[in-house]
């Protein structure tokens, strides 16, 4: 009964999101492997990989890049679709579809936050882009295989193992597999909200975050935006944000668009309608005037905490 009450307490929007993630786990992973099966691939590696073709090597030529893109042609297509969606609608892939990030999140959410590690207060942007540059340039140069620390290998293999595929079990019992499994526990299952890997290490998330931030400046793009006049500073959005993108600055919520996944949870928990996933109205002039008097100000939906805001201007 307690369980049912807890499930009922989940905001509707989040229930749909969890269902989508569960559906994509079914579509992407063993035993069904529907989507990789469409291109005759047994996992999310090889031609489906979206993490390798942009690795940088000194002396790399355009021909080399073209050949890498040709090898991972489906991955290139998927990544471009992800980035285009992100530009217009925010990080839909990361928040709603990605089974590799979503699976640890769902597991982590099933038990209490007490015995977990809180990564959300870490300076995640410098860590993420620091690791991203190491991943993209230094690791390949040093001969460290990008695949050995990739959770796009680990999580599908776990599903393989659970569905009785000996290959999956063999990986889970290897030294690399065991370390990856431990990292999955520490950065996933035992992380508050289970998204620490996405926050700190995921290269796709890093690129996606940049595009998200780039589009946030524009008024027609859909992003998580704050109406600063309505925010009461209750901080419930910051506490429920799974990626730690909301920080209370001067008792007003501020969204970090490099980390925000537009998961909508903040919108679902805000009682004041002060935060929303939306575009900003294009007309800046207040329309609600009566006899020339602006009696109710037009809401200002801010996606980015600008320098002007920092100085106290609204």
């Amino acid at each position, binding site marked *: 009964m307690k369980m049912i009450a807890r499930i009922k307490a989940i905001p509707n929007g989040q229930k749909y999101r969890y269902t989508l993630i569960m559906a994509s786990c079914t579509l992407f992973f063993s035993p069904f492997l529907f989507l990789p099966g469409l291109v*005759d*691939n*047994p*996992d999310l*590696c*090889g*031609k489906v990989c979206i993490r*390798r073709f942009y690795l940088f*090597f*000194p*002396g*790399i*030529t355009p*021909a*080399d890049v073209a*050949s890498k893109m*040709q*090898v991972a042609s489906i991955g290139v297509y998927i990544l471009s679709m992800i980035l285009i969606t992100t530009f217009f609608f925010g990080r839909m892939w990361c928040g709603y579809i990605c089974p590799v990030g979503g699976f640890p999140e769902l597991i982590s959410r099933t*038990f*209490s*936050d*007490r*015995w*977990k*590690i*809180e*990564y*959300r*207060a870490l300076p995640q942007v410098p860590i993420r882009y620091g690791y991203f540059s190491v991943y993209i340039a230094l690791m*390949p*140069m*040093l*001969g*460290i*295989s990008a*695949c*050995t620390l990739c959770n796009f290998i680990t999580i599908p293999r776990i599903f393989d193992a659970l569905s009785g595929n000996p290959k999956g079990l*063999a*990986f889970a*019992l*290897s*030294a*690399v*597999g*065991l*370390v990856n499994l*431990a990292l999955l*526990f*520490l950065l996933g299952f*035992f992380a*508050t909200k289970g998204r620490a890997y996405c926050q700190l290490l995921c290269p796709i998330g890093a690129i996606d975050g940049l595009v998200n931030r780039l589009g946030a400046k524009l008024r027609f793009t859909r992003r998580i935006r704050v109406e600063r006049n309505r925010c009461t500073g209750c*901080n419930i959005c*910051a*506490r429920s944000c799974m990626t*730690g993108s*909301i*920080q*209370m*600055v001067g*008792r007003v919520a501020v969204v970090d668009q490099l980390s925000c996944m537009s998961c909508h949870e903040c919108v679902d928990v805000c009682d004041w309608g002060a935060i929303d996933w939306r575009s900003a109205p294009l007309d800046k002039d207040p329309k609600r005037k009566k006899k020339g008097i602006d009696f109710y100000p037009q809401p200002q939906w801010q996606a980015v905490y600008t320098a002007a805001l920092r100085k106290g201007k609204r």
Partner: protein
Amino acid sequence: MAGSLHRSVEEGEAVKAGYCLKRLQLIEIFLMTAIYVGFSQIVNSAERHPDPDGCFSCHALEGLDYIDKHGVLRSASIDKKHYYSSLHGSVPCKDCHRKIRNYPHAVENVEVNCAESCHVEEPSEGEPYSHKYVVKEYESSVHGEGWSKGLTGGNRLKEANQAADPSCRYCHSNELYIGEAELPKFKASFDHLDSECGSCHQGEVWLGQFGGHILRRFIGSRWDKNDHNRMCNKCHADHQRMAEVELENAETREKEKAGPRFILASDSYATTLHGRLLETEVMQGASCIDCHAPTGFRHGVLRDENSKASTHADNLAETCAQSGCHGYATHPLNHRFVKTDIHDIDMIPAVNDIAPRDPSRLESSWIKALIALLPIVVVLGIGSLLWHFRGNKKRGVTYAVFGGDAFQEKMIGRKPKAKIKKHTSQNSVVEKQAADNEAHEN
């Protein structure tokens, strides 16, 4: 009388009927023979030489078995269809089995030397084609070491089950080299014979025998990378067989049993991107011989320690940079990239029955990382379990055990409860002390 006449008429009819039956049988036999002859004509039309030495008069018989000097029952029957579809299907038997002069022949005379010049004359040089250059390259390779069996590999059973070094025949066997399933691949190659080769080389003999033979010689070039890997894996994926292999220690020069890295080489390759790409038919992945024998006749596989080996540390960059793979590998800043472990044993289960338990595997940095991470996972796991069953959950919002305070301070911008308590309790101590001091002073 009438009865006897009647009977005789009946007998006559019976005899007549008997003749009819016999006639029918004759017709049936004739028809059967005609069908058989016709059918055999169709079958024979697939034959690519008329068997001038008459070998098939015995060897085409089924059950032509004998017991060899090892006491093993061997079959000397040749499946005509199989033979004609093989690489040498257009070559008469005695072209290779040259020692056979008389009939019946001795078993020993059967052996063939592949390095001898053979029947096909190369038009450009006018010399008979020979395998000797391939054999020379092969003999200097790691597979040719200590090879004393001769080109044909001697006893086929011994060769298949025990020997560490394969003979020519072991890889170039009919099953693998030209499996019947592979034949459609050639059919397309034969299509242009009339129009292209046929414009100079006219005549049925050339087209039927040599043309086909020359085309078939290029089957290797029509092999895809997976075919190559299948050939290598025929031995290298057999863990028990690989565990028997003895390798020379580079330092002590003594023969030692192969370690887990060698035994599991096929498995570790399969976990790399190279292996995984080929598994999903993406041909940009590198096959075994793409790295281990990229040049020459592709027979010269050498050990990494050998300075001539394509996989020797000094030659690796060139090998990786070949044929449009990793062109940047020769760049000096990428000198570590070429050392990326393609046979990473850490990707294989740490404990398994197929490889010896080698203590060196525990020295891996992955194992060290695991030792560091595992205690944290265990502590958090036990803590979660205890909290689930016995924890005090009635305190409102729960914060994480590690980093919870930092979150409250940095993200929410308030002092954590613990610190507030501490702060107030410290204050109260100070107040108490002040009150005591005051009391003393008074």
